[in-house]
């Protein structure tokens, strides 16, 4: 197994700042916008962006929720182990809100498809956008594209993109892992 650094800590920080600014361009003061971090790995990115928006760009009262898509996945009973769920916590109304889904890596698009179904259980959003740190090009199984992306990556089958976060993995970095 070998791995290559795609983004180091500084580059991740630059990407996060750019993504925050792009969000502000479209969402102004976030009064009608809610951020939804997708469990499990999108949560770290979502929390980072929230902190950045509040501390560096003085935006107050950003609503952030976590959505778990386990029970909405299309591969239930297709793997040998049962799919294990994570916590969903959305403590606000999603009805008529502008929702931004946040996930670390966009690959096949199947998780996002599941999230689009899952969020309907909390109401009918005005619109839904997608933000990902890494967009793996040419690997989509569904017609889904991000509205905001940190970095586009070409990776072949058998390669994996791994995002590490300081608060969970001890460092900020994105790796391309080859088996």
């Amino acid at each position, binding site marked *: 197994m070998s791995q290559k650094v795609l983004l180091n800590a500084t580059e991740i920080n630059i990407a996060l700042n750019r993504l925050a600014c792009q969000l502000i361009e479209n969402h102004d003061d976030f009064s009608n916008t809610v951020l939804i971090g997708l469990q499990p790995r999108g949560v770290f990115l979502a929390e980072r962006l929230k902190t950045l928006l509040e501390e560096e760009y003085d935006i107050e009262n950003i609503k952030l929720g976590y959505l*778990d898509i*386990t*029970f*909405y996945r299309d591969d*239930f*009973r*297709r793997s040998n*182990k*049962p*799919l*294990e*769920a*994570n*916590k*969903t*916590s959305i403590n606000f109304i999603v009805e008529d809100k502008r929702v931004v889904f946040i996930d670390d890596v966009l690959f096949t698009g199947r998780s996002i498809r599941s999230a689009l*179904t*899952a969020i*309907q*259980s*909390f*109401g009918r959003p005005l619109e839904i956008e997608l933000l990902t740190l890494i967009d793996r090009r040419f690997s989509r199984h569904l017609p889904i594209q991000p509205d905001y992306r940190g970095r586009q990556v070409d990776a072949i089958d058998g390669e994996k993109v791994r995002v590490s976060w300081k608060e969970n993995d001890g460092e900020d970095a994105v790796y391309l892992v080859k088996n």
Partner: protein
Amino acid sequence: MELSVNHLLGIKYITEADIQLIFETADHFKEVINRPIKKVPSLRDITIANLFFENSTRTKLSFELAEKRLSADVINFASSSSSVSKGETLIDTVNNILSMKVDMVVMRHPNPGAGVFLSKHVKASIVNAGDGAHEHPTQALLDTYSIREKLGDVAGKKVVIIGDILHSRVALSNIFALQKLGALVKVCGPKTLMPKFIDKLGVSFEPNLRKALEWCDVANMLRVQNERMDISYFPTTREYTQQFGLNKALLDSLSKEIVVMHPGPINRGVEITSDVADSKQSIILEQVQNGVAIRMAVIYLLASKIKHNED
């Protein structure tokens, strides 16, 4: 993690790890059933038959709701309106239903061991929803889950089960579940309604209700099952109530606040008075709500072991 079994036939057959997995999964489903839209599509290609060879309201509704919340297709069957009265055997009845491509069977049956028997003869996941005076595993799971929710943990807690232990499948399943989770269990009630070898289960018998209540953290009040009693086990209902009924005066006179549970249906004024059943120490309605989450977890975890896309 996955369950160690392909059927839920009784608490006796599952491990502590299985119970913890069911609890953790139920936590997620409890969140789901409190959403504006209380439904997930996980089991949309699973068909479940609810076979009730004995009367039930709560359990049947709870299972049916759990199945529908998971988007499974559900068919219902009650023996009173079926060909069982024409002399069809259990295996024939179930195999006829399974030939309509049913993946899972939830069954209540008056004969102990009916679920175990069926699991050996038909190709479907079996969930025991009560078999005679033997086991009622989902009730025990929801009872222990409710204790965990109320008191934080089951391990080390003292639980007394009061009433008709002899005819109660709830009692047996609860004893197994509580012991697997590390709780201490006593039983209390008329001597005539105690099974002969109860001490073999590691459970002690306390004939005095007040002493039992002073000892415990949780009191699980059982119903007197008149329909299962072929002879008189105690002189009168009035005498039973005087000795083993829980009333507000008794509850308030205890040195600590205990949690009161009841699996239902309640005979108000017999084993428990209305003011106790409706008091804030009672978690009877929480038990009912947790029942749906627990049954969703059991069905979800069993269904994840069914493979459609192979063979």
